[in-house]
């Protein structure tokens, strides 16, 4: 091998390292949202179930919660709904619904029919809050910690697999989820 081929050999080595580092660290795939690791955008929206009150992000401070973006017009949301109900039953973490660009009657009907996993449902009629949160399309689920920082974001329906693999390991151990 001539000495002029040395740079090529070193570069080949570098490619191996880079290829491994792309594949190797599962953490990297999490940075799908620039919001992860940052403070969750604030909101104060009318509640679907309680006309007297508003659902406020400030009231959620101090505990972990899931923010689930859904709508009755969304097919995938119907698919994930059973899983949300299961999570709600397990009592591990409260779920806040963000009903995105939806009609209230239909939403109430949907919850009556499929069960209500949500502690509260915020109505985002004009979609402004969804934009603040960087929502691409429903369903999306955000995990927010007690300090109000977005810990994880899932695009697409919540499944048992993604729940056990992505959400559960991120929750504070053990029983003390903080509420």
């Amino acid at each position: 091998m001539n000495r002029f081929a040395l740079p090529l050999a070193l570069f080949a080595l570098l490619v191996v390292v880079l290829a491994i580092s792309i594949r190797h660290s599962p953490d990297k795939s999490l940075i799908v949202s620039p919001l992860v690791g940052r403070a969750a955008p604030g909101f104060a929206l009318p509640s679907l179930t309680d006309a007297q009150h508003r659902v406020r992000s400030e009231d959620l401070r101090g505990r972990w919660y899931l923010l689930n973006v859904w709508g009755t017009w969304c097919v995938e949301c119907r698919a994930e709904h059973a899983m949300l109900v299961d999570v709600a039953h397990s009592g591990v973490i409260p779920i806040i619904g963000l009903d995105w660009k939806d009609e209230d009657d239909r939403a109430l009907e949907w919850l009556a029919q499929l069960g209500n996993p949500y502690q509260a449902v915020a109505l985002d009629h004009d979609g402004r809050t969804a934009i603040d949160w960087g929502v691409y399309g429903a369903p999306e689920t955000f995990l927010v910690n007690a300090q109000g920082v977005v810990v994880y974001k899932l695009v697409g329906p919540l499944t048992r697999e993604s729940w056990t693999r992505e959400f559960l390991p991120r929750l504070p151990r053990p029983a003390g989820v903080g509420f």
Partner: protein
Amino acid sequence: MLPELGHFALILALLLAGLQAFFGIAGAHLRRDRWLAAVAPAVAGQFVMVATAVACLVTAFVSHDFSVRYVAENSNSALPLFYRVTALWGAHEGSLLLWIFLLAGWTLAVAAGTARLPARFSARVLGVLGVVSFGFLLFTLATSNPFLRLIPAAPDGRDLNPILQDPALAIHPPILYTGYVGFAVAFAFACAAMLEGRLDQAWARWTRPWTTSAWAFLTVGIALGSWWAYYELGWGGFWFWDPVENASFMPWLVGTALVHSLAVTDKRGLFKSWTLLLAILTFSLSLLGTFLVRSGVLVSVHSFAADPMRGIFILAFLVVMIGGSLALYAWRAPLLRSSAGFELGARESFLLFNNILLVIAAAIVFGGTMAPLIADALGLPTLSVGTPYFNPTFLMPVLPLLALLPVGLHAKWKKGRLRESERAIGVTLAVALVLSLAVSFGVFAQAKVLTLVGLTLGPWIILSSLLDPLDRWRRKLSVPRAVLGMAIAHIGVGLFVIGITVVQSFTEEHDVALARGEAASVGGYEFRFGGVAQMEGPNYDGVRGSVVVTRHATALGTLYPEKRRYWVQGTVTTEAAIQMNRATNLLIALGDDLGAGRWSVRIQVRPLISLVWLAALVMAIGGAVAGSDRRYHLAARSAAAAAAEGAKEAAG
């Protein structure tokens, strides 16, 4: 409609880049001169198409078209016009489009500038640039299309990342990218020379102005980024060895080596294969920097949203471009021989040391930046490399580099008769040493060893840089721009060394808790806190503090540090208040509200910090002056004349 037009223009640009690459490289290889004629129109067409795409996206931003996802994510109806335009490169997709636009611009300039060079050579250069452009266009269209629609359209946008809403940062990416992309030209020249299997001194002369200009842009770009980090991030420093900063610094270091090695190849026909390798490495590091930032492999304050698919695509692109050019190098470089020799004390040896030390410095930065990745690949525990590694190790090659510079400036080409310049070297060194002692003990009344070393090296470099132009002027000889530019750039180096030494040695910094009316004394200045007031901007609100600065009982003015909260993203940014006082930089940043009217306030007194950025600007001006030397244009013209001669002979 316009976004679709922009998308379509990008697809056409991709096709034209493919044609440019094919006709340029294959045409020259197969000696089909009619194919070569298609190359320049393809370059022009590609530029028009890319410019159209940019115009479409800018229009979408300016007219608040929130049905375009990229616009909805990076703009807002409250965003001022200036930032709506610069929001174009506020995130990944638009940054890539900017990259491509600048490459198209450089390629157009190269097409115009190399029109006088031998036709096949210039076709090869443009062909290689076509390959680069093709890769980036394909990347954009396949993984990062900025024209994707958002259905239903958003009623309003999420706003531009607030830390990017700053004039310095708004113009930082275009200038930095102009430098990065400019090194693609040196790369293309190197590949063309290897494809041709011929590299002479004329080649180096053609390559020099392009490389020097790219280097000057990169210098300004890095300096702007550092300046922004200083006053916007409020961390109180100008360089953090952040992976993204390093990604721009590595091509700069190797590019600096390239600028010097090209000088030797131009003047003496030496270092041919080394120069080629540096040209490849400089651009490769620019590409690698893009990879590291865009793939999300490295997490940094600068990273945008990352996507593993993009990482894989860029990696494949790196393999093709860097791997291909290095393979070409392994194959062709052994054919290039230099016959001339030089003596130990000759200028060539100093430039050789310059190159070796700069490459070592780049390797140190590279090692520190890549170490976390390598540890990760080997399954070792997570590694974090920061200032404690970089600062001392980086000094090891850089101190000898700076010490050799003033000596090397006195050396002559080819002959190692340093003895003739012994007096000049000694006198300049003595003057610098006296200055250094006077400043350290006269002004600041204290000094560490490195302070004295730095304060001696700086003036020594400046004085030595002045000798040659002054000597020419005294003897009523002309001072070519190349010589003048070199002197200016080296004076910039000297100023930089002085600035950095003073800042590092004599900075005072304190975090204090102040209530309204209380004062703190730092570095001979008194800072009296006047409390905070609420305020509101176009798309943010926040608080503004006021601090009255006095020195020796003379009021110097009031500073207003701010804490802003941007409405849409809810991000809080710190706007430090900065004031210059006789080259001393006073920085005040608001910390936290401690309650009961008390605030934590960070106060820094940094003498001469502005000199650091000013010096970088001086270096860049030197580069610009040297790059505009008429000698290079004459060289191009005489090459054209020679080619015409050759054609005439062949015809006769």
